[in-house]
């Protein structure tokens, strides 16, 4: 189990990240906030973990990164990076995983950089420690990386302090840092949320490009289905700590199987993502206050008495899809069918889901 974490890259057939039956408790074990969450991410694949705040997506993501908030604990389940069980790592073993096999970018990128050091030095430091290279060599590599993430004048950026760069530039810097160790998995935790639309599109493009060029596995955590639709191959929708729908992006977006996914799509389609899920009536239940039945029932327009009576299992719904809804088969939910989810297809500029165009 506690095998040395470094030299075990995932074989081609094996997923890069396997989350299996993950349970996470908060409040020092008092409340279960994530329940039986499972998903996999393969090499070169992008998975979107979607849900509103309180859905458990951040807890899941922080568990993958080994950065639990105080009082938060993985109570059951496995998180495997290649063949390494991340839940069993010691502090020292984590050091060998983070930065070299696992990279992460976050919301508000500037706050994740040390304000007192130049960004170049912060990128160079782990390189020098890990590879034992000279200062000049670290600088050369850092400048190359800054160029690779599309920063103009990377040599000048190298010697800037974080507060001297814009939000979009900082996110690029953070991405450069995250991929500097050539990781297998890149986790993007609301990485585009605070950015304005144009920059957001650019950053998503960059992540997509890095995924294809470097064969990265990408785990995109966000509340914004539109962002996921942009880059992800698969979508996992979380609600109140449970997976409610899991499937290929194109299918889920065009024909959602769960009423909650439908609601999320409706929000995304309004194009006003700043207001979040205000258009879904009600709010997600507090962890630990849920009844035995479907947790979305009291906000769901399709709910029946059967929905709240007993546990609703996650069941296959064809095409490699899973859904946690008793009425999934009978409901004909509205997706973004009229808005082709295939990113390769041409799209007119007025489509709400479209954010790749840059105003001239």
């Amino acid at each position, binding site marked *: 189990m506690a095998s040395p974490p470094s030299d075990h890259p995932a074989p081609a057939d094996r997923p890069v990240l396997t989350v299996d039956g993950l349970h996470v408790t908060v409040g020092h074990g008092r409340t279960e906030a994530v329940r039986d969450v499972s998903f996999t991410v393969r090499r070169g694949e992008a998975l979107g973990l979607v849900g509103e705040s309180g859905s458990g997506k951040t807890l899941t993501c922080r568990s993958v*990164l080994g*950065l639990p908030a105080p009082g938060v604990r993985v109570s059951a389940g496995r998180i495997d990076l290649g063949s390494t069980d991340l839940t069993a790592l010691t*502090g*020292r073993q984590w*050091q*060998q*995983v*983070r*930065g*070299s096999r696992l*990279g*992460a970018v*976050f919301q*508000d990128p*500037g*706050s*994740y*950089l*040390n*304000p*007192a*050091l130049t960004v170049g030095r*912060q990128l160079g*430091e*782990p390189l020098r*420690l*890990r590879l034992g290279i000279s200062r000049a060599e670290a600088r050369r590599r850092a400048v190359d990386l800054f160029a690779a993430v*599309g*920063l*103009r*004048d990377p040599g000048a*950026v190298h010697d800037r*302090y*974080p*507060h*001297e*760069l*814009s*939000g*979009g*530039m900082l996110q*690029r810097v*953070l991405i450069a*840092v*995250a991929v500097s*160790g050539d990781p297998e998995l890149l986790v993007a935790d609301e990485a585009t949320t605070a950015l304005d639309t*144009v*920059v957001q*599109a*650019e950053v998503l*493009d960059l992540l997509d490009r890095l995924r294809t060029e470097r064969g990265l596995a990408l785990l995109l955590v966000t509340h914004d289905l539109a962002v996921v639709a942009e880059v992800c191959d698969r979508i996992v929708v979380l609600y109140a700590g449970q997976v409610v729908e899991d499937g290929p992006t194109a299918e889920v977006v065009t024909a959602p199987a769960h009423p909650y996914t439908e609601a999320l799509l409706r929000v995304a389609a309004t194009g006003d993502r700043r207001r979040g899920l205000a258009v879904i009536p009600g709010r997600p239940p507090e962890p630990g206050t849920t009844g035995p039945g479907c947790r979305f029932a009291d906000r769901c327009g399709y709910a029946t008495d059967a929905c709240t009576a007993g546990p609703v299992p996650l069941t296959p719904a064809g095409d490699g899809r899973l859904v946690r809804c008793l009425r999934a088969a009978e409901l004909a939910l509205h997706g973004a069918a009229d808005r082709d989810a295939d990113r390769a297809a041409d799209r007119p500029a007025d489509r709400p889901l479209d954010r*790749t165009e*840059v*105003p*001239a």
Partner: protein
Amino acid sequence: MSAVLAPGRPLRAGPLARRAARAPRTAGRILAGTATVFLLSSLLTFALGAVSDANPAAAALGETATPADIARLDHEFGLDRPLPAQYGSWLVHALGGDLGRSWFTTVPVADSISAALPVDLSIAGLALVLAVALGGAAGTAAALGHGGRVDRAVTAVCTVLGTLPAFVIAIGLITLVAVQLRLLPSGGYVPFGRNPAQWLRFAFLPALALSLDAAAGIARQLRSSLVGALRENYATGAVMRGLSRRRVLLGHVLRNAAGPAVTVLGMSVPMLIGGAVVTERIFNLPGIAQLSLRAAEQHDVPVIQGTLLVTVAVVLIANLAVDAGLYALNPAARRGRPARAGQEADR
């Protein structure tokens, strides 16, 4: 794509610019503030003498002074002039290094002070070094083992030290180190210039007694800012780069968290000098406090005023040094912009 959004466009100007305008702690402003504080302190020091009914004749001659003696000596020391004129000439002379002469011995005050000041400065300097070393080590160790046994021990010791006056610590150290163990002398002094090793022998205990409280303050402040800074996103960012906890703490967090501790250090300078009064008495050191105590007994106003003014000057210079240190710690301030961590330090 990305033709429009060229990286390198103007920075987010709004909130930053506003913040910068609100906190322009530039060197010029700091110097102006310091000069004003010095002037106000000198005014207070002078006023102390002005409201006193002590006079040179009484100080020198005691009960036997006749009204004629008083008038003659008052004139000799310039006390028959209007107060603003007295203040003006006293301040101008003081800035030129002339603090007047003792009413009692007529020795120039500046001479007495320059003989006594090195004692205090050397001991306070040693105390400062000890405080930084002890407080820094204890605070960092406590933060590294946050919530653990070391942390609790450091917190407990700091709390106890905070309730003890320096002279009680000094008595404790004398009892233990000098009287019981006979390791170091319990009093006396040899100037550093004459014999550094002997100086250290005599200076170590007083400096240690003086330093412990400042060390406790530094340790407490450093611990809490380190623990706070470890929760900051940039510490998480450093962890995510695969750096070890020790490296994150010492290489990234300490630098930003040191600001408040440096401020505490600066604030402890007047206390080191004030505490020196009692430690000087206990360890029988020929310092500025002994001078001041003797002058107080003799109502020797020029000496009293002189020691006070020089003390204020020393403290203000130390404060300027701290400001310079904070400035150097914070590259954002150096470039005329407040940094994120800088805001914390400014609090």
